[in-house]
């Protein structure tokens, strides 16, 4: 057997000179000749926060998991906004992003005073069966009032507002918001706690289910003590607790901070052909070719082609070891391609299930058009420790579209449009 291997000529020793004599003309298979347009990519990477204190709302964090840091702490979304439309359970907090509105050269809007602080909140129902039903709903037109199990809210505040000071926070541990917000549910810590425990009058809940869960999981014993003041409570006023005590619910996702940075998309391998400009503008991006499957089995159908380019793009943003200014662990990209540029396109892992222009509705409040804001990648599921059962969450990508004009409306938390692309449940043949 070994002699056989010795007999075989080492095929890789075919030198390039010999090979060139066999130069062939290429078959004309289509390639994605991506245009040489500059691509501005903003990436958000997951990091462990330096201290949980830094994720409080007066520091305007971008975070994922845990509980949301509401920008406007008083007028929180309630009622049907806070629930999954299929199972009626309150939605779970996925992530929030502090995204500042850039003024682009070719955007006609002047800088808006009212959008000095701008936060986007994404909530999702953790049940996969609801997401599967949601898939059908997202294709429906707005007039039919589709029911969603994943929702995104935008909240913006001007620089001068009643909740926060106009100066940037000093981050020395002494920052405080100007006023106390509404009390949140003692179980999930996410939604407004409008209902009060009839026993102790201290614990607040957003819905009956959470009250029942909290009761079962320990409040039953403590309620009695609280009534008779046998236990000291952190705050006697009905307001939000600013200290980051753990909320009672144990099924919330682990908390991380999201670092949002601009990255110019570029190809490390093709660095010699790319020409970098020293100016503050983006670098010339010469993308590598998309994967080409040539065999019949490997023939690139649309899905495989888009998966191939998706893989390539995310592999270009590898796990990055952070620079010396921070002491955080290795992170990875979880959402990218934030761009309010009208030409920007999200990165789709599959070719099926993409929305066309008609599928994206108009803004609910100002009837203006929506534009692509950012997308959430499936790597986040790994960080959140989502289980891998048949009913646990899984998605290809989640894309958020927001009002182009970032309109002001009466509602504090304005609902925006969200699109989910799932991996197909059946294996692709």
């Amino acid at each position, binding site marked *: 057997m070994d002699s*056989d291997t010795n007999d*075989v000529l080492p*095929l*890789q020793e075919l030198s*390039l000179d010999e090979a*060139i004599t*066999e130069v*062939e*003309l*290429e078959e*004309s298979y289509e390639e994605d000749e991506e245009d040489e347009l500059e691509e501005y990519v903003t990436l958000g990477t997951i990091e462990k926060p330096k201290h949980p204190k830094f994720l409080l709302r007066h*520091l*305007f964090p*971008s975070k994922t998991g845990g509980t949301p840091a509401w920008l406007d702490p008083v007028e929180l979304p309630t009622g049907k906004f806070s629930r999954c439309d299929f199972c009626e359970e309150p939605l779970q907090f996925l992530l929030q992003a*502090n995204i*500042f509105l*850039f*003024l*682009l*050269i070719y955007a006609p809007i002047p800088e808006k005073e009212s*959008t*000095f*602080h701008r936060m986007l909140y994404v909530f999702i129902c953790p049940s996969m069966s609801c997401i*599967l039903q949601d898939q*059908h709903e997202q294709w429906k037109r707005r007039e039919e009032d589709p029911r969603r199990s994943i929702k995104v809210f935008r909240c913006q505040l001007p620089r001068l507002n009643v909740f926060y000071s106009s100066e940037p926070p000093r981050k020395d541990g002494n920052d405080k918001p100007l006023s106390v917000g509404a009390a949140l549910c003692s179980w999930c810590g996410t939604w407004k706690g409008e209902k009060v425990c009839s026993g102790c009058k201290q614990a607040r809940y957003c819905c009956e289910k959470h009250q029942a869960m909290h009761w079962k999981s320990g409040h039953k014993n403590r309620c009695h003590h609280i009534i008779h003041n046998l236990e000291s409570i952190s705050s006697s006023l009905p307001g939000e607790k600013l200290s980051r005590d753990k909320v009672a619910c144990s099924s919330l996702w682990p908390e991380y*901070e999201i670092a949002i940075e*601009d990255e110019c998309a570029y190809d*490390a*391998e093709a*660095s010699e052909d790319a020409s*970098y400009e*020293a100016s*503050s*503008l*983006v*670098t010339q991006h010469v993308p*590598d*070719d998309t*994967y080409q*499957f*040539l*065999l019949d089995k*490997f023939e690139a159908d649309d899905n495989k082609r888009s*998966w191939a380019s998706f893989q390539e793009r995310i592999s270009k943003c*590898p796990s*990055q070891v*952070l*620079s010396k200014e921070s002491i955080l662990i290795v992170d*990875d990209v979880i959402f990218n391609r934030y761009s309010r540029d009208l030409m920007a396109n999200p990165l789709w892992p599959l070719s099926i299930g993409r929305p066309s222009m008609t599928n994206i509705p108009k803004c609910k409040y100002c009837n203006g058009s929506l534009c692509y804001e950012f997308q959430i*990648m499936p*790597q986040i599921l*790994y960080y959140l420790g*989502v*289980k*891998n*059962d*048949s*009913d646990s969450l*899984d998605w290809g990508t989640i894309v958020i579209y927001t009002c182009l004009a970032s309109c002001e409306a009466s509602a504090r938390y304005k609902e925006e449009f969200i699109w989910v692309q799932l991996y197909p449940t059946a*294996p692709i043949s």
Partner: protein
Amino acid sequence: MAERGAGDRGGFGRGFGRGRGDRGDRGRGGRGRGRRGGGRRDEEEKWVPVTKLGRLVKEGKITSLEQIYLHSLPVKEHQIVDTLLGGRLKDEVMKIMPVQKQTRAGQRTRFKAFVVVGDSDGHVGLGVKCAKEVATAIRGAIILAKLSVVPVRRGYWGNKIGKPHTVPCKVTGKCGSVTVRLVPAPRGAGIVAARVPKKVLQFAGIEDVYTSSRGSTKTLGNFVKATFDCLMKTYGFLTPDLWLETRFSKSPFQEYTDLLAKPTKAILIENSETIEA
């Protein structure tokens, strides 16, 4: 886009939220560049899986490729194969072929790499990738080869003594004009084949086989694809020992949930599946 550079915009110059300013320096020397280590990055430094199957493999719930093959789950991340086959996987570049396209400004040359990977024990994969640089093509082809790893069935020529050593039956594969036929051989015959398919068969772990090929075997691309196609067919051939009815098992996506404990959830899933259908 010029405004992006300025740091005194609203939101307190982006430093309001996190103190992570420093966006004035775009271009080469910026933080983005520095973080990537100047174009050279460690591969598989830390793999963050993107698909559910990837997450299951990373956790360790799936221990062998056979579980994936059993349920025909599509493998979309090459790190899955890396994790499961580990160091046993070897790769070999069969050929680098320059291909050209005529443009107004002359010819544009790209390099096509053919890579075969295998563990010499029943798994083999083939990848073909074309790119502007040889290294890129090879790297891409290795990844594609890992994604296309298939199981190879081995059998006996005569007495069923010892380990299977040859193909279970005569199989033939075709690509372009090249057809390759594999015929079972007795132990000790070795791989009786041309240079190119011999390599592939060695990677597959077949010890003895007679081959016969036809067509323009000079075209290495088609020759190697034909052999690969042939090997894929070994598990597609119904032999009498496969006549027994299969007992189906739960796919890995279902194994780790206790469906029996939550009957309502199971019904819900079924309902949504019928909506999907």
